[in-house]
């Protein structure tokens, strides 16, 4: 495998019970790039993140992160690998009983023996990077959705990981917060030398900041390419998705029996 790729996924299949979610996914995330995984709700995007993070194990295929095959690791090795990963959950998943400061300091206190004075400085630096140094003593319940997401971002980069995964970072944000989070993801990736994988269905915001896009639909990669290629893509699914069309390869109607028969029209004379 090429050492330029931080994450390499080959022929990955996964099913919940006998409901297949992913059917032969191939995906690579080169170091230093921002990758987007797009697709409709329930298309298995988040499942893909959980497979990369080792929270789920694939039924077939391989997931490699930094050269290590994630599903082959034992718990200790997996935890060692996860120290090099950060994850931003959909609504932040901040620890509600800890202040903003303690949330960001959490991993430093759990995993390192750094003196408290140093942790204090590091936390304020991380918070300064997301513009929330002034909010360090607030509790998560006092934050707006966008602020919580930024704190979670500061927490995710607390131990300077090589990879950050974002689960729907744009969901439920106002336009200003949306732009702030998008720019932060790009800037953090570039300045800290990270690799970012964003799972999202927000086309407009993510096409502005990502280097490469994968479209997932029905468990397979439907299309892939740079933002420019995606915008010019003739694939019907991509076209429907980008333009938010109601009907197309993804039908408006959930599969149902014949409408007339459901209404009983065929029995009337």
């Amino acid at each position, binding site marked *: 495998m090429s050492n330029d790729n931080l994450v390499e996924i080959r022929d990955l299949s996964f099913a919940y019970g006998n409901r297949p979610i992913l059917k032969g996914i191939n995906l690579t995330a080169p170091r230093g790039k921002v990758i987007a995984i797009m697709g409709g709700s329930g298309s298995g995007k988040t499942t893909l993140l959980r497979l990369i993070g080792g929270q789920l194990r694939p039924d077939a295929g391989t997931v490699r992160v930094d050269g290590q095959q994630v599903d082959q690791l034992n718990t200790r090795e997996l*935890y060692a690998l*996860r*120290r090099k990963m*950060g*994850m931003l959950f*959909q609504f932040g*998943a*901040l620890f*509600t009983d800890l202040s903003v400061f303690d949330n960001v300091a959490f991993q430093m206190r*759990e995993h390192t023996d750094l003196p408290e004075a140093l942790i204090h400085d590091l936390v304020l630096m991380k918070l300064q990077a997301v513009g929330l140094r002034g909010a360090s003593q607030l509790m998560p319940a006092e934050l707006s959705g966008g602020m919580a997401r930024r704190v979670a971002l500061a927490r995710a980069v607390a131990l300077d990981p090589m990879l950050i995964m974002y689960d729907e970072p744009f969901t439920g944000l106002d336009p200003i917060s949306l732009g702030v989070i998008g720019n932060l993801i790009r800037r953090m990736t570039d300045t800290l030398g990270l690799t970012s994988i964003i799972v999202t269905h927000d086309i407009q915001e993510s096409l502005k900041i990502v280097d490469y896009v994968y479209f997932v639909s029905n468990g397979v990669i439907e299309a892939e390419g740079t933002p420019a290629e995606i915008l010019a893509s003739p694939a019907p699914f991509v076209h429907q998705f980008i333009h938010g069309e109601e009907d197309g390869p993804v039908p408006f109607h959930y599969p149902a029996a014949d409408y007339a028969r459901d209404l009983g029209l065929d029995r009337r004379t």
Partner: protein
Amino acid sequence: MMGGLARFFAAIGHPVIDSIERLGFASRFFGLILLRSGTSFLRFGLVIREIFSAGVLSMLIIIVSGLFVGMVLGLQGYRTLQTYGSADSLGVLVALSLVRELGPVVAALLFAGRAGTAMTTEVGLMKATEQLSALSMMAVDPMARIIAPRFWGAVIAMPLLAAIFSAVGVFGGYLVGVVLLGVDDGTFWSQMQAAVDFREDILNGVIKSLVFGCVISAIALFEGYDAPPTAEGVSRATTRTVVTSSLAILALDFVLTAFMFKGV
């Protein structure tokens, strides 16, 4: 005909198999708690926090209930004992009832309602808001960091609360018996002192409440951890915590009593 029969057996079989499966999960969960308890003792501060939130915050309800239970015991006991002219033994009656039975059992029932439900909702909501997932993605084991300290906190808090319940209850009995109804002060205490045995009565009461503490916290934590991550799921889990642990306490109390006091 066959279809009906098959459905009949399926209707019985499904819940039975499901319950056994859940019991299996619960046992495995309990084993995992014990296995991952190392952190709790290396960083005892984590457990002390939980002793505070499960124990200290339950003190008010324990003290108030203990006082009233003791006062009622004093009233009822006095009436009955006086019929036989042995109102002097009121202290014995109050103390033995509390230390052997009411202290551990009523304190455990209250504890399940006050602290057990709090643990279930807390863990259930942590799961629903992905905080447990976030922990494990940060390479911090939720079993070791969140679940085990709560378990040990409750196990340590339970006997202490039961002891407080009994002590306050005895005082309540004293208030009613001696201060209100006029039983002799000295007799009340000296009879109690003579009749209550440390090993036979007090130690057995402590053992009971330790067992109850284990059962309540294991049930509460399992229900929270196993709850579907929705508002309805967490609320059902909380209800199940109270129902299951109350029934478990009462059933176990009978079993334990049968073993402990068979010779008495």
